[in-house]
């Protein structure tokens, strides 16, 4: 039987298989939403979907692509932006 505090859906349920062969439910905090492009709203590639604690310990280069507007705009929108600036 689920204990009362775990009936709320604010925590994610993760099913784990123990070394003894049992199936156990782990209650973990939910992941943040996927990072979106500020211009077109598409999901950004190369930006991990991790809790802030893990993001803190990650190096900067693991958290966004290494180009101007990396982690803010998608690659298509950056190209458009740079083209517009150059013209």
């Amino acid at each position, binding site marked *: 039987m689920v204990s009362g505090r775990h009936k709320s859906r604010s925590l994610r349920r993760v099913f784990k298989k123990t070394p003894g062969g049992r199936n156990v439910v782990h209650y973990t905090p939910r992941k943040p939403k996927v990072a979106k492009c*500020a*211009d077109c709203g598409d999901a950004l590639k190369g930006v991990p979907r991790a809790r802030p604690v893990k993001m803190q310990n990650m190096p900067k280069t693991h958290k966004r692509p*290494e*180009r*101007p*507007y990396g982690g*803010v*705009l998608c*690659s*298509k929108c*950056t*190209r*458009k932006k*740079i*083209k*517009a*600036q*150059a013209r």
Partner: protein
Amino acid sequence: MAAFFAASALEKRLKLKPDKSLLEDAATHSYSSLEREEEIKMFDVGRLCVKLAGRDAGQRCVVVDKIDDRHVLIDGMTRRRKCNVLHLEALDETLKIKKGAIHTDVKKAFKTIGIELVDTKPKKAKERPKKVRKGADKKKKESDKPKANPEIKEKPKVVKKKKSVPKKKAVAKKPVKKAAPKKKK
């Protein structure tokens, strides 16, 4: 980043949609073979470009050499490297350089437009104090001792007093002593 957000907010306010739609047309435009040839002609040696993709995006560069119908060698504010023509945006200006010019010539050519290229020197690795493992030292000393033991028995005792070694070491040395006299017999 903050500056960019402010800019995008401004764009939204001013509703600069017609420009964007034009750009989108250019991005989704499919090339016919003739157009393709024309575009490749645009990227002759000496053509000033802006790089669109990668970590050098937004930096200006010059076409130094043509590699094949799609790739060119570029140099300038970017790194000197092979580049796909699709990743470049050609500008109106051209620079006077020879085909396959060295970096110093490119540097001079860029000075004529008023851009000074700053070369980054490769960093020299700093000399770090070498860490000596404590365990490795002990092992060496212990291996030295048994050789000295058979000649003079008193020496190891002196060493003990100086160090004031914890119990573990004393345990380790005793068997060594016992082993040495056995060989003599």
